[in-house]
Structures are given as structure tokens and as C-alpha cells.
């Protein structure tokens, strides 16, 4: 039972990070129909910027956190302006390939500037684990979960109550109608990328604190696909639910099935779920079903 609960808790923490990264992914897809294969690399950049600030320049963690967020926003805006805007109206394949090219570019740049060896954050959270009725949770995990939850709540409120958030939802719902109501679609796209880069950066800082930072961190970009497909590509609640579900399921599967398959079940299990969902319910739990006409 303890083993089960331990797996659940780990899954919940991993899942909350997935949810955070998936949130940015869904946002970009929802507002501009762009599938972002570079989401993992945005995570990577965020993790490295904060790491360099805290470890090399000895900036206090909270300040470094704020600077990283600012850098991420600028990066998101720049990517949208430089690479995505010329591609408006191009076919799906071209846009997929563009973001793949972007991921290669960002990964190469990170590798070029900061090398490939794994680095660790200076200890920020106390290392003494906390105990909840027999389940041991390290403080990093606890704080990761709290931080993810805070950001998820902030963005849920942002989309519900602020003017920009409502404008973004309007643009996602019907671009032409939003345009005719005086909403600047370009601004919306820019904002979507800025927010996506921001949440990815926060995700990067959290994962970096748990596992250390190296280039392979960007693999989380691929793990986000099962999450968004399960939740529905254009649903923000879907990203959160999908993230938590995938996080928990992959940890349970890893914990119980690894002995039979010789390890690695954790990596493959989300993709099996992905295939299953695509076969049974391709638009996911909360996704909007598109009806096609000739």
C-alpha cells in the first residue's frame, strides 16, 4: 500500500509538471493551430537560464526566477515574430517541420553555449524530507507541486477573468469573428507563444531542481504529446487533467510492470495510451470535435 501511495505521489508531481508544459502547448495550438515540437526545448532554455543565474552569477533564487520568466517571455515573442508569422496559412506539414527545425536550432544553441554535461542547481529547498502518514516526500517534490499548482491556477483565472485572457479565448474560438471585433490576432499569437515559453521555463526550473540539467531534458517535449492527446489538443482543463493522469499512470505502470519487461515501461506507457486514445476517441477527453466538409 505504501508503495502504491508513493508511486501515486511521485506521479502527481511529475503529472503537475506535464500539465504545466502541456498548458503552453495547448495554448499555442488553441490560438494558432500550430503544433509545437519545440516545447521541450523551451523547457530546456528556461532550466539553463535560471541555472546559470543561480549557480554562476550567484543571483538569489527568487530574482533568478523572475529574470528567467522575463527571458522566456522575450524568447516566445521573438520566436513568434521571426519564425511563425511568415508561416501563417501554410500547410500542417510545413508548420510541424518548422517547429521541428526550431527545436533543433534551440537545442543546438543550448549545447553550443552551455555544453552537454549534467549540471545541478545549488540546493534551494531544504533536503529534509516531509512525512505524510508514512509516505515520504522530499521538499523539492512538494514545492514543485505547489509551484505548478499556483501557475495552473493563475492561468486558469487569467483566461476566465482578464481582458487579454478573454480575447485569447475569443480568437481561439473564431478567428474571423475576433478580428472583426477589433482583437489583434498578431498580438494574440505573440501572447500565446510568450505564455507557452513562460510556463515551459517554469517547468524547466522545477525539473532542473529535481533531476539536474542537461540537453536530454528536452525529451519532455515528446512526453507532452500523450498528455495533450488524452486531454484534447485544444482544451486547457484537458491539459491539466491529462497531465496528472499520464503522470500517475506512467509511474504506476513503471512501478508494477518494470520487473516483467526489464525496465523502461515508464517511457513507453504514455505512448501506448496515446495510440489507444487516437484509436478510440481521437479528440481526447475534452477536445472539440471538428466536422469536416469538402
Amino acid at each position, binding site marked *: 500500500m505504501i508503495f502504491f501511495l508513493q508511486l501515486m505521489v511521485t506521479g502527481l508531481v511529475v503529472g503537475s509538471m506535464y500539465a504545466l508544459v502541456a498548458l503552453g502547448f495547448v495554448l499555442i495550438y488553441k490560438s494558432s493551430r500550430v*503544433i509545437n515540437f519545440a516545447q521541450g526545448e523551451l523547457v530546456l532554455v528556461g532550466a539553463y537560464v535560471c541555472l546559470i543565474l543561480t549557480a554562476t552569477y550567484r543571483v538569489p533564487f527568487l530574482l533568478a526566477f523572475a529574470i528567467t520568466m522575463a527571458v522566456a517571455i522575450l524568447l516566445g515573442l521573438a520566436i513568434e515574430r521571426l*519564425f511563425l508569422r*511568415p*508561416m501563417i496559412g*501554410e500547410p*500542417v*506539414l*510545413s508548420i*510541424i*517541420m*518548422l517547429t*521541428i*527545425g*526550431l*527545436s*533543433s*536550432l*534551440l*537545442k*543546438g*544553441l543550448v*549545447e*553550443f553555449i552551455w555544453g552537454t554535461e549534467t549540471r545541478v542547481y545549488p540546493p534551494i529547498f531544504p533536503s529534509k524530507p516531509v512525512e505524510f502518514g508514512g509516505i515520504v516526500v522530499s521538499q523539492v517534490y512538494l514545492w514543485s507541486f505547489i509551484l505548478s499548482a499556483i501557475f495552473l491556477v493563475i492561468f486558469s483565472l487569467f483566461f476566465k477573468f482578464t481582458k487579454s485572457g478573454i480575447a485569447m479565448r475569443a480568437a481561439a474560438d473564431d478567428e474571423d469573428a475576433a478580428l472583426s471585433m477589433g482583437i489583434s490576432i498578431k498580438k494574440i499569437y505573440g501572447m500565446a507563444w510568450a505564455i507557452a515559453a513562460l510556463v515551459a521555463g517554469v517547468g524547466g526550473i522545477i525539473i532542473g531542481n529535481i533531476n539536474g540539467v542537461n540537453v536530454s531534458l528536452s525529451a519532455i517535449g*515528446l512526453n507532452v*504529446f*500523450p498528455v495533450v*492527446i488524452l486531454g484534447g489538443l485544444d482544451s486547457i482543463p484537458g491539459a491539466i487533467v491529462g497531465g496528472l493522469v499520464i503522470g500517475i499512470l506512467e509511474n504506476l505502470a513503471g512501478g508494477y510492470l518494470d520487473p516483467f*519487461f*526489464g525496465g*523502461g515501461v515508464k*517511457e*513507453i506507457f504514455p*505512448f*501506448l495510451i*496515446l*495510440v489507444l486514445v*487516437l*484509436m478510440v476517441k*481521437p479528440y481526447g477527453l475534452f477536445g472539440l470535435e471538428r466536422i*469536416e*466538409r*469538402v
Partner: protein
Amino acid sequence: MNKLPAGLFNISYREDRQIFHTKFIRFWMVILLILIITGPFFLNGYLLSLADLTGIAIIGALGLNILTGMAGQISLGHGAFIGVGAYASALLTSRLGISFWLALPMAGFVAAAVGLFFGIPSLRIKGLYLAIATLASQVIIIFTIVHWRSLTNGTSGILVPSPNIGSFEFDTDRSFYYIIFGVLVLATLYARNLFRTRVGRAFIAIRDNDIAAEILGVNLFRYKLLAFFISSFYAGIAGSLWAHYITIITPEHFTMVVSINYLAMIIIGGLGSVLGSIYGAIFITLLPEFLRVIAGSLNGIFPDIGNALGALREIIFGLTVILFLIYEPNGLYHRWQMIKAYWKLWPFNY
């Protein structure tokens, strides 16, 4: 598509059906064939190995272009299908002792069967959903290869024997060149012919609008799966050739990166065109070599450049893909057509 030069009129169906329409093209095709056959005699070892790698890449790119460029089904799992072909061929020859010449087509069929299986979702989903499904197939196939240790030997890989006829071993770049280019010529001719058949036209109709194609009487179930079948068959052949050329294969040879490379080839070369696949495959295969030469010459100025080569390659690859998509979305093939059109009327091109 089939644009004919001005002033060429076909007056019989036979003439209209020709692959190469003008004497000029036929002449240069013969020259090209002669160049291909005599190539190994004046290329040195390094260039010859590049030619071999490019030849294999062209076969793989042709396969992907039939699926993605012609039939419009995006695939992010081409690298894994190539892996299936390579492992099938390696196991058939090393475990069962089947000769390479039989294992080559068999590897094609094994890969095609696997491709068929992973093509089934294409009946229900399309566009980016299909892309994500093929991404899953890539991850699942590689996982299977890595973890089915009793069959594939896991990450340590398997040794593959060189092909032979009697006592003659095809174990050098020079002798293997003839196998690769023999297969390549057949593969190119088949792909070129496919455009003119009912099947090829059905593929193009599905790409342009699948619902309209279905209304016109194209059986989507059959033709989408057929596209996956043919494409994976090409991938299997390319994989088999690769395995016997390299003689040791591990799962790292067939990762996501390979799939992305192949997609980059057909996009940079030109979607849905045979010549485009060839240009793209040459471009992407030679890009890292080109970079290495440049880095080598810059070694005196930046002594550390050798260490950063891997990172530089990723940067240049990403930039190339992005710049092509923004400034030349129709690929090298289209640019070549434009250049030809420009010179056709030069200097009176106003």
C-alpha cells in the same frame, strides 16, 4: 508535375505516355547512367562512401515522399520503419543463413507489413493527429527493438554479414556501390512510373482532398494503406542495404532524428516529386560533411571548433529547415525549375 517544353506536341498515345519526353532528356539520361556505372573508377574511397550513403538515403527519401508528398500522409516514423527493414534483413541473414539477395526483398515486405499495421490509424485520423500517431509508432518500434533482447540483442546491436555471389564478397565501398545504385535505379523508375498510374493519381487525389477523392470513387481504406505499404517497403529496402553496408546495427541508428532527417530531405528537395527526393537526400546527407570540411579549415582560427561540431550541426540543420520553409517552401526542385525557365528565354526574358 509533367510540364512539357513549349513546341513539343505529342501526336500519339504512345508518345504521350513516355517517361522521358524529349531526345535531349533521353540523351542526358544515358549520360547519367554511364556516369553512374563508371563512377567508382574515378571516385576515391571517401567520395565513394559518401555516394553509397547518399544512394541509401535517396531510396528512403523516395519512400517517404510517396507517402507524405504524394499521398499526403505525414509520417514521423520513417526512421523506425527503416530500422525494421534493417533488423529483419540482419536477422534473416545472420540467424537463418538466408542469402542477402533473398533477404533484401523479404526485409522490404517485413517493413511493409509493420508499416501497414501502423498505417491503420490513418483511416480514422489525419493531418497532425496522424503525425502524432506515427510519432508513437516510432517510439514503440524502437522500444521493442531495444527490449526484445533475445531477438535483437538490445542496445549492443547485431553483426551483419556482407552479401556475396559465390566467393565474391561485396564488402568494399566500391563493390557495394553497384548493389545500392542498381536498387536505386529500379526504385527511382518505379516511383517515377507510379505518378502515371491509377494508384499514383489516387494518392494525389487523397492528398489534395480525401473526402472529395472518396466521393470520386477512390477507396480510401485501400489506397491509404497501400501508400503506407509502398513507403515502408522502400524504407525496408533502404534499411536492409544500410545494415549490410554498415555491417553492425544498433537501435541508435534508427531514432527519431533519422525520421526528422528524412522529412527534412523531402521538404527541402520538394514534396511529391521524384527529383525533389533525390536533391533533398543529397543535400541533407552532404550537409554534415560540408560542415566538417568548413570546421576543419577554420581550425586554425577557432581551435575549439571540433568540440562544438555536434551542436553546430544541429544549429545549421535547424536553420536550414526553417529558412527553406520560409523562403523556399516548394523546395530545391521548384528552384531548379525556375532556373531552367529563366535560361530558356534568356536573354529575351521580358
